[in-house]
């Protein structure tokens, strides 16, 4: 049967299993929206800004592990998606973003609402396409999803000119696709795995350093089994939080700039570091020259470019974490006695770490007069569902969430790590809630970042997405203020937001509810009220304005040179 290009696009999405898309109409996608009008299999959510639409698709993808889909019109619609796309790219999140384009005959003519979005997004997509012929749509959409979700996942943009949407052709969707130029490695080389296990078993002070790859590669189970089998402590990056239960005694929590004292000490003193699906980001390593100076390094990653990009590696294994970890587990099981010996051999090391944990636990000073943000985060954990999904914005509140929430399950923390995009939290929570209408979804935001996408309150209310929004209000661009306090003599240049906003009235203006807490003893009650109120709710906490995120490794310092107290 002959179909229009617009219809073919929707049929392709359906066959890819897409149930929800986040999109915003306009002149060059009006034909897609016309087809969508009577296309019931795909649920469309209308955000109030295309950036938020892409963040929502991203939140959907992070929470489900599936490809998130967003649609925008040409020109300004397309440019509005760029921050969302770059955010997903830096964190390796699978997205397919479809943009309308001016008719092929007008491309290059500075036509109305024309922009070279393929050129603009080339450096921040895994790949992108401009479709010039209606007969290419099916294959290119197939390729787009395949590229987005395989290997190291990432966003793919498809630019679809208006005349191609209108043209008709027979629809045929390819069942499989092969690209001679793209063949990601899945299986870790058995020889390398064997060598890695031998090397591992020689260690006395091992640490496993885990990143977002274990979450995107669905390997939390394998990780846990390996760590338990060999008694190896585990530290995670911000992106890795949730891949290993933080209430497990082997957990060291977060490492890096705002990591725990004991995680950073363990990495600095270990004799073997197993990096799994992590990319040695500068927020993690601090000064490279003094990073894990005594350690042999094993690095497991699906993307060869991650390996030896920043640090020397003694034993690289290219492959999917799930495959490599299960092979490692199997190999250690075959070692029998040696594995038991190894477990005993690391006891002194675990005792040393326990000493660090006792000396400098992750902590804060409680007061009765003002609300401490860390206390709010702890209370949120205590009062929320065990499988609650938490999306954060970017800033101090993000780090306090990472330090104090105690994540135990993969895909329960959605946070912009690589790009650090303020404005991410609320729309990401919205996407996760759209994917899981029945689960508790909490957005933890600063007062600054919340204002970067607060228009999405409308989308939440309209679509009955009951996201619970926690605003940690310090009336500061707190994270930048902290740097100004520590490194710029408290010269708070443009970081005080000054204008006090009535977030409760704001919530009400959108048809949502709002509650406020100004004293510590109101915190619990406010959270309970928010959780018990149906629909989207803002809970605003007036927090200690100049509270700092600690510990902190100053930029460029070694991991063991942490600032512990104010």
């Amino acid at each position: 049967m002959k179909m229009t290009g617009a219809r073919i696009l929707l049929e392709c999405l359906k066959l890819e299993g897409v149930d929800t898309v986040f999109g915003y109409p306009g002149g060059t996608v009006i034909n897609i929206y016309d087809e969508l009008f009577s296309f019931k299999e795909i649920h469309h959510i209308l955000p109030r800004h295309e950036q938020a639409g892409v963040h929502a698709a991203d939140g959907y993808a992070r929470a489900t592990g599936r490809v998130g889909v967003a649609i925008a019109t040409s020109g300004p619609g397309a440019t509005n998606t760029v921050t969302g796309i770059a955010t997903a790219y830096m964190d390796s999140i699978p997205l397919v973003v479809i943009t309308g384009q001016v008719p092929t005959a007008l491309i290059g003519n500075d036509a109305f609402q024309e922009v070279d979005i393929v050129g603009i997004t080339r450096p921040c997509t895994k790949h992108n396409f401009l479709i010039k012929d209606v007969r290419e749509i099916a294959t290119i959409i197939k390729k787009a999803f395949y590229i987005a979700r395989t290997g190291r996942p990432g966003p793919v943009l498809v630019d679809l000119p208006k005349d191609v949407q209108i043209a008709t052709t027979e629809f045929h969707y390819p069942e499989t696709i092969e690209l001679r130029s793209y063949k990601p490695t899945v299986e870790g080389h058995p020889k390398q795995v064997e060598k890695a296990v031998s090397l591992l078993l020689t260690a006395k002070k091992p640490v496993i350093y885990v990143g977002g790859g274990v979450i995107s590669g669905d390997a939390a189970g394998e990780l846990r089994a390996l760590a338990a089998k060999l008694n190896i402590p585990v530290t995670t990056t911000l992106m890795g939080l949730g891949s290993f239960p933080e209430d497990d005694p082997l957990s060291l929590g977060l490492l890096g700039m705002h990591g725990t004292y004991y995680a950073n000490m363990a990495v600095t003193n270990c004799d073997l570091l197993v990096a799994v699906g992590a990319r040695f980001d500068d927020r993690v390593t601090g000064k490279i020259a003094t990073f894990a100076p005594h350690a042999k390094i094993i690095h497991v990653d699906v993307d060869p470019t991650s390996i030896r990009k920043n640090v020397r590696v003694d034993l690289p294994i290219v492959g999917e974490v799930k495959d490599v970890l299960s092979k490692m587990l199997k190999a250690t099981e075959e070692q029998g006695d040696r594995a038991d010996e190894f477990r005993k051999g690391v006891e002194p090391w675990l005792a040393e770490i326990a000493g660090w944990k006792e000396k400098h636990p992750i902590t804060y000073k409680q007061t009765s007069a003002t609300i401490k943000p860390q206390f709010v985060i702890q209370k949120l954990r205590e009062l929320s569902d065990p499988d609650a999904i938490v999306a954060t914005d970017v800033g101090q509140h993000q780090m306090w969430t990472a330090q104090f929430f105690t994540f135990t399950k993969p895909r329960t923390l959605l946070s912009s790590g690589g790009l650090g995009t303020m404005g991410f939290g609320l729309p990401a929570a919205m996407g996760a809630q759209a994917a899981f209408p029945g689960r508790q979804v909490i957005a933890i935001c600063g007062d600054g970042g919340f204002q970067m996408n607060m228009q999405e309150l409308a989308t939440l209310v309209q679509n009955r997405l009951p996201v619970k929004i926690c605003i940690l209000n310090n009336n500061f661009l707190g994270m930048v203020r902290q740097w100004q306090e520590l490194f710029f003599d408290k010269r708070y240049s443009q970081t005080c937001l000054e204008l006090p906003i009535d977030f409760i009235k704001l919530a009400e203006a959108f048809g949502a509810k709002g509650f406020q807490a100004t004293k510590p003893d109101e915190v619990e009650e406010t959270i309970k009220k928010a959780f018990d109120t149906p629909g989207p709710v803002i809970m605003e906490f007036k927090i200690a304005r100049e509270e700092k995120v600690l510990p902190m490794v100053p930029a460029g310092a070694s991991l063991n040179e942490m600032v512990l107290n104010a």
Partner: protein
Amino acid sequence: MRHTITVLVENEFGVLSRVAGLFSGRGFNIDSLSVAPTNDESISRMTIVTRGDEQILEQISKQLNKLIDVIKVIDFTGGEAIEREMALIKVTAEDVSRAEVLRIADIFRGKIIDVTPKSYTIEVTGAPAKIEAILELLRPLGLKELVRTGPVAIGRGAKGWKG
């Protein structure tokens, strides 16, 4: 260190800008780049001359491989390849220097492809070092214009890369 890298890519719209963008975006050097279709029309072949230490070269080659349109990356370093470059050189040739220009062109097996009373245009091919050598001799006589293709490279021996 100088490296000559050969890249086989899908002969598609935008591939050149992906490769060029990769080099500029990541701060890698490009000394020269040449590109044209191969015997298989769906494949183009690029020859890129770049510089960097071992770690940078490893990243360049991994990053190139990571581009979806890149089919194969070959780092031809260590003399296992033959390199050739062509230069078209317009050189001042008046009075006494006319004979000298001809002599130099002849020594380098260059061809005169255009003549005026005031100039010769020479076509010369060879390894990049040979091009450098003839330029050094011609420069004092007065170079009016120079265009070089940048080297292309092919592996020694019977084995051939498809395309």
